[in-house]
């Protein structure tokens, strides 16, 4: 048996013993329920295991959006929709769900989360973390949006309530198109890039939104239902309700 193999076996035994110790400590400390605080050892081991499990190339991946860019604002509505349920709107995780989850929902502004590289945060959002409440969003959230969420996480330590309110206002104000009387209101709208436009159906029957390019493609929108789309690329989109061909509109994204 060579020295390398002997070292490997010793390392494995030590890791195994540490894991067993942590397991015993967990059981002795209140079993596998989710209502008690995790021990320090358990937290460190879990964090190290997470660092270890993320592939090297993913760890080193760079956020394509420059740190000084304001892209975190664009991610705010997405964060509010997908993440705030557990992490809270400001990312500090003080939701009513948080103390009921195990492991605890981390403070995204805390040193533990901020200690991850951008690449690691991207990987975590996309892949989730096994045996925790963190789902993997691959397929639900695009790569570009994930990088913007990473930018949002980086912003959490300095985020103010005014910042959040401004992002919210920006997402809501002037970006609703109402479908009423078999017409789009307004039927000609100009918005800045990154705006979320919401189409709300106030008629008694379904409508849809379909652009020539296919960028806007809502499927049927039932009465009193809405459909939202985020427009990141500049351009002019002529759209129509294909169910009512005279019902047309245009969106200019600047």
């Amino acid at each position, binding site marked *: 048996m060579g020295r390398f193999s002997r070292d490997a076996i010793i390392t494995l035994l030590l890791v195994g013993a540490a894991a067993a110790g942590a397991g015993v400590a967990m059981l002795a400390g209140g079993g596998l329920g989710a209502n008690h605080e995790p021990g320090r050892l358990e937290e460190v081991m879990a964090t190290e295991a997470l660092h270890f499990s993320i592939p090297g190339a993913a760890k080193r991946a760079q956020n394509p959006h420059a740190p000084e860019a304001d892209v975190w604002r664009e991610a705010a509505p997405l964060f509010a929709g997908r993440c705030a349920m557990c992490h809270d709107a400001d990312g500090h995780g003080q939701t009513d769900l948080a103390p009921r989850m195990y492991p605890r929902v981390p403070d995204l502004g805390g040193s533990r989360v901020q200690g991850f590289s951008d690449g690691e945060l991207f990987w975590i959002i996309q892949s989730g973390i096994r045996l925790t409440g963190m789902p993997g969003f691959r397929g639900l959230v695009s790569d570009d949006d994930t990088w913007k969420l990473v930018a949002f996480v980086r912003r959490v330590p300095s985020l103010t309530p005014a910042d959040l309110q401004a992002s919210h206002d920006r997402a809501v104000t002037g970006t609703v198109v109402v479908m009423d009387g078999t017409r789009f209101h307004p039927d000609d709208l100009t918005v800045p890039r990154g705006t979320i436009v919401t189409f709300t159906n106030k008629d008694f*029957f379904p409508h849809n939104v379909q652009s020539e390019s296919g960028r806007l493609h809502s499927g049927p929108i039932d*009465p009193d239902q809405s459909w939202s789309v985020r427009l990141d690329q500049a351009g002019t989109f002529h759209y129509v309700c294909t169910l009512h061909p*005279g019902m047309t509109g245009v969106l200019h994204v600047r």
Partner: protein
Amino acid sequence: MKHYALVLGMVGLVAAGDRMSARQAINDAQIAAIVVTANQVDIDAGKLAETKGSSQQIKDFGKQMVTDHTGVNKQATDLVTRLKVTPEDNPTAQSLKKGGVDNIKNLNTLSGAAFDKAYIAHEVDYHQAVLDAVDKTLIPGATNADLKALLVKVRQAFQAHLDHAKMVQAAIGK
């Protein structure tokens, strides 16, 4: 020829509506009956077009009429329930119903492209006639503000249907 007879019947409907409004004899309960019947007549024709239409455009248009007019009727029914109004049968509603039955009878004698043309021609005329009745009789006659608002909104849908029907008619050729 049958088609012209139907159109004449609808002209009679508008005229009847005019007479009613001149006498101010129409009330909200009667208007409710007219709205529900007008929608139901077009739902019935739409269902026939969905199954009997030969071109996809006609089948799609028929399906759209079923969906939209069913949605409008649900709102109208919800409103009259809320207002505690019982729709009251009247000559205009009866005339609409008879016109609808006659139209279905006529369409059932046709098939293929002839069916498509007759169906869409009737849809154009029907929506125009109903729009006229809405403008000249129903909206001026409605006393309840919610009922009036519903009619104004429904009018826009009927206008959209009329425009759509004309587009389909132009596409399949008269």
